[in-house]
């Protein structure tokens, strides 16, 4: 269904008039004189990018764990324990299985009184209720920006937005292959997708650590409306 557009013609005509020309209906893609963004971390190897990411995590109050699929279950378990366990909400995502987490999530947690809720597109109200009461939300980064320490999440019916915002703690799994120098590469990837005529997610989150504010006397408070604590787990062999 397409939406309504109101009062566009007069509005745009007025702009063109102010600019002293007739309305523009065609415009070639601009060529820019400057492109400083390509220089940042230009020749960095994956290893170097992991090191940059690790260092940046200290600036953004985010705990970072370097892991691989062989020890991911164990590492995830210890982060969940540190966060006080209780209840976990995750996307519905095949990758958890691929990362060897099925046994931990579906067998071990229920046996040890950690409640697991998997996002369910058929249960809309329940999804929000569960996300609101969950202690921990677990998501997966699609593109990871080393320079800023940012995970990029794409929403879908199985990947609810609320999982990374409502729970008090956020754990984001970061496949090493997703790490790029900076936001430039992510933006370019998304832009190319749009130019190919593909649909982009209705919500794309660039998440850089837990929520925070310095609105009171410029004193940094970590944890405001979104998560209070955050951990990234890098999976080296994915």
């Amino acid at each position, binding site marked *: 269904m*397409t*939406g309504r*557009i109101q*009062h*566009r013609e007069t*509005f745009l005509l*007025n*702009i063109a008039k*102010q*600019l002293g020309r007739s*309305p*523009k209906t065609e415009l070639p893609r601009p060529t*820019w004189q*400057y*492109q*400083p*963004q390509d220089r*940042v971390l230009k020749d960095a190897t994956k290893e170097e990018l992991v090191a940059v990411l690790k260092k940046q995590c200290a600036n*953004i109050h985010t705990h970072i764990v370097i892991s691989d699929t062989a020890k991911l279950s164990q590492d995830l378990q210890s982060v969940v324990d540190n966060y006080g366990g209780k209840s976990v909400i995750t996307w519905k995502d095949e990758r958890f299985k691929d990362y060897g987490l099925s046994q931990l999530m579906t067998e071990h947690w229920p046996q040890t009184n950690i409640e697991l809720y998997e*996002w369910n*597109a058929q249960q809309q109200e329940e999804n*929000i209720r569960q996300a*609101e009461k969950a202690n921990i939300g677990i998501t997966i980064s699609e593109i990871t*920006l080393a*320079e*800023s320490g*940012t995970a990029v999440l794409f*929403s*879908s*019916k199985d990947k*609810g*937005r*609320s999982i990374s*915002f*409502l729970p008090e703690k956020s754990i984001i799994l970061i496949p090493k292959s997703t790490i790029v120098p900076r936001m430039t590469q992510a*933006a*370019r990837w998304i*832009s190319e997708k*749009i*130019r190919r005529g593909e649909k*982009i997610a*209705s*919500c794309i*989150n*660039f*998440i*850089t650590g837990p*929520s*925070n*504010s310095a*609105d*009171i006397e*410029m*004193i940094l*408070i970590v*944890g*405001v*409306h*979104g*998560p209070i604590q955050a951990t990234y787990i890098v999976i080296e062999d994915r």
Partner: protein
Amino acid sequence: MAMKTSDDRFHHRVTKELENQFMRSAVSSAQERFQTRRLQQAEELGHWEEWRAHGEEIRKHVLENLDYYLYQLSENVSKRGGHVFFAQTAQEATDYIQSIAKKKDAAKIVKSKSMVTEEINLNVALEELGCEVIETDLGEYILQVADHEPPSHIVAPALHKNKEQIRDVFKEKQGYDQTEKPEELALYVREKLRNDYLTAEIGITGCNFAIAESGSITLVTNEGNADLVTALPKTQITVMGMERIVPTFEEMEVLVSLLTRSAVGQKLTSYITTLTGIKDEGDTDGPEEFHLVIVDNGRSAILGSEFQPILQCIRCAACVNACPVYRHVGGHTYGSIYSGPVGVVLSPLLGGYDDFKELPYASTLCGACTDACPVKIPLHQLIHRHRQVIVENEGKAPVSEKLLMKAFGLGASSPTLYKMATKMATPVMSPFTKDNTISNGPGPLKAWTEARDFPAPNKDNFRDWMKHRTKGGDHK
């Protein structure tokens, strides 16, 4: 709150704000921290001048082709199920938003921080309908509870209040019974607002950058409030100033990189979110209905004029943090939601010279704002141009301007006037001052000092200048 925040005369505001000791020390320490962080980030990024040049070329290109990009944006929003309303005036915008609130029978509306909604006085329009409107940005929430105090800084709206005052406001208005520790205050607000996100019928946001190629809007926050405002209520309304648009994600990324560094000295803020249309089929969270309201409200009159560069502004407040006059008088003195150098330029353009004709004189024309601007707006030149326009319109220069003209432009024909006008320039000029003469001045002094040394301003303060200025007439 409308754009104009005070009916007090300008010199009354100045006098009043100069008495506010906490505010004055909070402002100067905030300015220092913001500045230090911004410079650190610029240094770490490297090639900062090239970044600024790129930011500038993007913004200029967009303004030159604004009708094209707004057309493309509206087409793409519509394709993704969103409605677009072009509002020529503040009234048209608020009427439209009121009509949605009525249709949705909205009792509660949650909002994330937005300057343009302040500018069009949206909250009052919605409260007239009986809606409860809740600001969710921590600083904005504090001001709202404190009987709708005006913001004093574009990025840190509650900068003028200390934690004890905030505790007392919550105590008096809401029975808050904990301490003044910022963490406790924030946790209190977190818990209080959680239920509001879940029960509000409508979420309202501003827009940092709209993206024409996809019909997306980009929201930049640290608190995560904008994400809850847009994920949970069933109806989302986004209000954008018509110039806040970029061609593609690639330019959005460049401007966000400039914005977060210049505003708060972060590589990126905690949450940068791009939202496209209504939620997808099967999605749980996200709006079922989305309205994008594109506001002109005086902006098109700036297009094609010599003030067009002010529309390049990305609202980072780096100019505010660099301004020696803001440092002395704080945000409320400007009497506008837009304070500091950007406010000096923008307020008279959007709100008229009648209400804001003193503002162009709240500047030393030192050019620190221009140097700080990440998209290279020639702020101090625009401020100077305002003064010329005022002189042309009124047929005579207000006394205060004579002082400044004589002092900075025409030389020291009267030593007393010269002294008065230049007192406030001391903190800015001090880095360039040697043996009481200025030999390598910035901004407007450059042309002068290239040829000769300029006598250094006396080391007195703005108060003296103000005292003389109010004596000299031009009372409004």
